[in-house]
């Protein structure tokens, strides 16, 4: 090395012709990061298979009751069968919420827990842009996940019901809304997960927080005894999703203080936006 003569700036560095920074490059970088983890395709594939499987199996199980009702005139009346209630059922929705929430949380705490975040921010000091790119990528991915699950479940289930003449079409009242809300609960929960990941930064704490927020907190806001509690409960993501994923033609009781459809959409949107803002702001502000 001593053969080289020191000469400051003798060779032009890459910095000399630095191209204009583009947000799209950060999105692409986050996309590379997401798909270069083995767990990503596995989690997505497993979630798709299980949630669609649970929905279709529920419809399949209903055949017994639908057929018995048709034969004997008891039990389920064929005309009163609600393909939404089981075809886009709550167990699947919960699994989808859990998976999406976990994907969102992992995408953020994965950076902090491994220390990768320091490498990331040393490479891109514009933290807000990194956080926004990550929000965009995770939102897009989980929206696609929710869309696949919701459409496959709806069309698959109702195709199965064609033989029993109780299936619904996407053009029937409320059906498009049900499918959309069933799909969109995924990105909403993913964003909630990202916010908890940004706030807690550690794997266990983030996961416990997102599960608590999505599944345990709603238990505190049930019942019709106190209107305020119930009204707050109506705005929680899972409850808003349940309200939206309901067949308007089915006789469902929402209790004394029912949520409106508009209110429920608004609640989901508010959770999404607030979570995204928390994730970006917290990531920008704190030392790493």
């Amino acid at each position, binding site marked *: 090395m*001593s053969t080289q003569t020191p000469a400051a700036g003798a060779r032009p560095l890459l910095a000399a012709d630095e191209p204009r920074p*583009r947000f799209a490059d950060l999105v692409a970088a986050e996309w590379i990061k997401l798909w270069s983890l083995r767990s990503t395709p596995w989690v997505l594939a497993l979630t798709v298979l299980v949630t669609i499987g649970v929905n279709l199996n529920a419809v399949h199980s209903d055949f017994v009751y639908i057929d018995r009702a048709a034969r004997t005139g008891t039990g389920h009346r064929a005309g009163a069968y609600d393909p939404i209630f089981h075809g886009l059922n709550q167990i699947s929705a919960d699994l989808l919420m859990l998976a999406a929430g976990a994907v969102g949380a992992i995408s953020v705490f994965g950076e902090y827990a491994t220390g990768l975040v320091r490498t990331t921010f040393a490479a891109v000091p514009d933290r807000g842009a990194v956080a926004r790119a990550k929000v965009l990528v995770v939102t897009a991915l989980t929206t696609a996940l929710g869309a696949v699950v919701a459409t496959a479940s709806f069309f698959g289930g109702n195709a199965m019901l064609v033989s029993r003449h109780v299936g619904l079409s996407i053009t029937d009242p409320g059906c498009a809304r049900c499918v959309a809300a069933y799909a969109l609960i995924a990105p909403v929960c993913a964003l909630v997960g990202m916010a908890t990941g940004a706030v807690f930064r550690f794997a266990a704490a983030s996961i416990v927080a997102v599960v608590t927020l999505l599944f345990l907190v709603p238990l505190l806001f049930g019942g019709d005894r106190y209107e305020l509690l119930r009204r707050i409960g109506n705005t929680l993501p899972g409850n808003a999703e349940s309200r939206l994923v309901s067949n308007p033609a089915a006789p469902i009781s929402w209790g004394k203080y029912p949520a409106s459809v508009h209110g429920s959409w608004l609640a989901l949107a508010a959770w999404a936006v607030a979570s995204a803002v928390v994730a970006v702001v917290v990531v920008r502000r704190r030392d*790493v």
Partner: protein
Amino acid sequence: MIEARHVTKRYGDTVAVDDLSFSVRPGRVTGFLGPNGAGKSTTLRMILGLTAPSSGTVTVDGVPFAERRRGLRHVGALLDAQDVHGGRTAAAHLSALARGNRIPRTRVADVLEEVGLAKAAGRRIGGFSLGMRQRLGIAAALLGDPGVLLFDEPLNGLDMEGVLWVRGLFRRLAAEGRTVLFSSHMMSEIEQSAEQVLVIGRGRLLADEQLADLSRAARGGSVVTVHAADPAALAALLTGEGASVRPLSEEAVEVSGLPARRIGELALRHGLALHQLTTKASSLEDAFLELTAGSVEYAAGDGRGGAL
């Protein structure tokens, strides 16, 4: 060029970095030396804008690094070789970094080749040894061909071949006109690689000088251990010649201020028998201990051994 102006970082009541001011110039390798917990890593993080100073400013090429939108073409840094996701391959890790900075994808293969990881490009980082991770971190630092390079304890976990390679790399990067700053808690590592040295202890700057000056100062302080038949007579003789003499045992004394050759000649001239004459060359390591001992003892209230 890195410039720190009166930088202080407090964590609650703890002062990690205390009113630190220094400049790191391009074209040479600068060592950043201090005992564990001296504030080296905190300082490097503040240079990178990862940690905000409580007061003061740090700039790189005149700009606080956090104000840059993309970093890799300006500063390449290896803070901690573990700051990666073990689930990704080396190539994927670097590809994401390159993409975010609009660096051509061909650079990924180039830097992997340069650090000797070309064959491991498709392997997951989780299976890498510490040495391989250090090489990957160095590859990431080189990705944007930056004018400023920061390395925190880059030699940890490297084998001898790796250490020699890193030293050569640092010299080459500096010779290309870049600013190279690397930290270590071992004077011996700095001694082999750096021309300029910043020494900190307890968050304060203790020295900012050329290694040559520091080592000259160190040599002046060398001591000689002398075993003699009559140590008392020898002590009297040497004290008379201006040396300071400390008895070590019944037959040995420690002499500072006179070189071994001169002690031998004096003893011969005065007919004193010497059994052993050993120069304990005071190394840079001692100079470093000397420098940091005060700051370590002052705050910790325990000996230098404990703090190091």
